[in-house]
């Protein structure tokens, strides 16, 4: 598919049409109400063969659907990036994400997706359309956030978020201390995942390990890469020094 250069209003309209199709019950916090009726934008979409039907109730063509999925994907990945890595919270994140999305062109979104460990849901719990990188589960090296299930034994980090929508599982994990911000260390992957959360050892199955996303490098701490520059003894000294 050619790389379409859409105007911002046209992209907005594509995204609204997608959201409307995704389900009325899932209220969109920043794009509520019926899709904007922007005649110029609609004309642009029709011209490119992305939308069809009467101007009052336009629908997406298959090509339009693919393009809209890509836009939604970029937007929700941007949301994840902002909340998880840059620690921008709440409505600010959604607002910034909308602007941010327009800047993410093809290819960059896949790199961000890889960086974040191919998340499947945005911070609001809505699904992120998967890209080619997700299907290949490409590039585990150099990512910032990753599902626990993709970590190697001995790797550690801080819990970024829990992805599950099952309230009971969520409640249990929270009760066992698996809250965002808790330090987590993966001990082993087989026959079950064994993790240490604080001073608690917890065994999990792989599906549950896939629902826990881990920050591999905490932004406020000395990263392992930087520590490696110091002689081993000095590194430990530093670490101890930071603790109150």
């Amino acid at each position: 598919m050619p790389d379409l250069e859409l105007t911002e209003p046209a992209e907005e309209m594509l995204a609204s049409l997608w959201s409307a199709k995704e389900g009325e019950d899932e209220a969109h916090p920043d794009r509520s109400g019926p899709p904007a009726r922007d005649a110029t934008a609609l004309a642009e979409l029709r011209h490119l063969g992305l939308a069809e039907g009467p101007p009052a109730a336009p629908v997406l063509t298959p090509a339009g659907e693919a393009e809209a999925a890509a836009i939604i994907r970029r937007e929700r990945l941007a949301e994840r990036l902002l909340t998880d890595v840059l620690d921008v919270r709440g409505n600010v994140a959604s607002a910034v994400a909308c602007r941010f999305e327009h800047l993410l062109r093809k290819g960059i979104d896949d790199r961000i997706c890889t960086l974040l460990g191919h998340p499947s849901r945005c911070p609001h719990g809505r699904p992120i359309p998967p890209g080619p990188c997700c299907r290949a589960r490409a590039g585990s090296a150099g990512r910032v956030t990753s599902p626990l299930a993709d970590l190697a034994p001995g790797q550690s980090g801080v819990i970024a978020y829990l992805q599950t929508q099952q309230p009971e599982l969520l409640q249990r994990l929270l009760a066992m201390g698996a809250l965002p911000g808790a330090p987590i260390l993966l001990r082993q992957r087989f026959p079950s995942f064994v993790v240490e959360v604080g001073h608690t050892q917890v065994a999990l199955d792989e599906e549950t390990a896939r629902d826990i996303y881990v920050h591999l490098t905490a932004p406020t701490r000395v990263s392992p890469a930087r520590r490696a520059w110091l002689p081993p003894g000095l590194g430990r000294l530093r670490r101890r020094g930071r603790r109150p």
Partner: protein
Amino acid sequence: MAARLFRPLRTLLTGRRRGCDACPLSTPSTRRRVVLFGSPNVGKSVVFNHLTGSYAVVSNYPGTTVEIARGRARLGDVDLDILDSPGAYSLATLSEDEQVSQALLFAEPPDLVLHVVDAKQLGRMLPLTLQLIEAGLTVALDVNIIDEAARAGLTVDADALAEALGVPVVTTAAASGLGVDRLRALLAGPLPPTPAVSIDYPEPIASAVAAISHRLRAAYPISPRALSLLLLQRDRGARDLVRKAEPEAVAEVDRLVAEAESRFPHPLSFPIAVARQQAADRIAAPAIMARHRPAPRSLADALARLTVHPIAGFPLLAAVLYLMYLAVGRLGAGVLVDFLDHRLFRQWLEPPLIAFFQRLLPSTVWSSLFVGDYGLITLALRYSFAIILPLVGIFFLSFAVLEDTGYLPRVALLLDRLFKRIGLSGRAVIPVVLGLGCDTMATLVTRVLATRRERIIATFLLALAIPCSAQLGVILGLLSGHPLGLLIWAGVVSATFLAAGFLAARILPGEAPRFYLEIPPLRLPSLRNVCTKTLARLKWYAAEVVPFFLLASLLVWLAELSRIFPLLLAALKPMVRLIGLPADAADAFLFGFLRRDYGAARLFDIFSSGAMSGASLVVAMVTLTLFIPCLAQFLVMQKERGLRVALAVFAVILPVAFCVGLLLNLVLTGLRVPV
């Protein structure tokens, strides 16, 4: 009937000792009802044992305290009525055992809730303390297992913590008795007022709590604020409370909850938990000191690693199971039963007793009631005390050791992948292993499983293919001279277990269970705990088994007199002959329903008299293992899962057991396997 049969069982589970209740030595004084509350593995039951000196099953896996243990203690002029609740991570409940804990607080708010926490995990357990305070209960905090925390390099400042929380705090290491005196002083001392706790919940929680609290007008055992928070987490117990107190408010409450939910993308338990944790962290930070470096890795750590090692873990598990087999099969069935049954009972006790009764009651009808083939003494008492109890005793002893070390959750972790195939999660390992001791007890413990589907599958498999230790002991004893037979028996029963589970998982609708389990540290078992636990279970078992055996003997005697028994036997005999067994074996199956072990013990008798070949023995053992569960298990199944499920399980097992027996008989005789 059922209520009477279960009295011994309930006595065990509630730990209520008739003696204690019956003899109030002192004049009435200040009465105080104390509830021990806390997550699993924090030593609540050890604390309970220390305070009351009475019994509660102490263990290292979630779910042993399935019902509430109750004990008394007198400190100064304060009479304490202490209740030990099943482990609960939160006031909002998910599993049936947590519902028991919640119901305990809701039914009758205690004078004091003693929240027991693990010092190492203080930070993540404090949210529950806050929750209890928020509920308006009078709370004290027991920071337990400080010895393990000290080894991990952590010290807890009780005074700083008490100041920050506004409730009294003591530190203890209950297993070694450290700090228990301070705890006693606290329990007998003046009760503190409940402090106000302010947790800042984010929107939409805060406004929803305000709206729901405003709507709740009835008097509740917990504060409206805490109740609203539970309602927002869709807690069933809390909703039932409202429905009972003010049914007209339920619709409005539901609407407010749904409205709050629609305003937040995740389940509301998530922001509530995060807000509580943040508050707890603020409180815990000044009280926890990580002063020194943790102690170097000990041998226990190395062993703990080995038990869950991806490769070494499995042979280790096999070795542990083999050790248990040696204990039950060799020591129990071989040495102990041989001595008690053959020597003590048959050679020394029986002849004089038989002679005595025959002289006392010249009519054979009456004397056979006591010393006949199915006599109360020659059968019921001999089976229970000489054959069954030694076997079960040794099993319970080894199980108690396993429990106390914390090995069982590790078995769960090792076997989760296999158990997923049969529709269960690793968590189900606990009832299944316990089932090897007593299936009835294990059926009760299936409560710890998360979904109804998993509970049904576990109940079914326990009834079908898990032999209890009495049965196991008799089988191992019988087949000890036939290694090939033992192998065939084990192979066929395991294959049936896996195949039945596999099919059940395909047939029963519902999602596959998730597995998540806290793994406690590997601990050296304390002799005291192991002994009290084994003795208590054995007492329960004896109270359960002896009346059943006596009743069975009596029934058989009556049935024989009234000619019902021969009629039933005649009906069973063709089926028994069909699978290649002597017709005499029919009564073993009939007994098998009264007690699993009773049936096996009966076969033991028949075989000892030389009426069976090796092959038919193996067939009989397989069929009897798979055969319908005993009466007690059936009653518990009915109570826990409902009559429909119990009957369905019954209806499936009967043909399966006979078909497997039939097939095995055809194969063994067809191939002329030299068993």
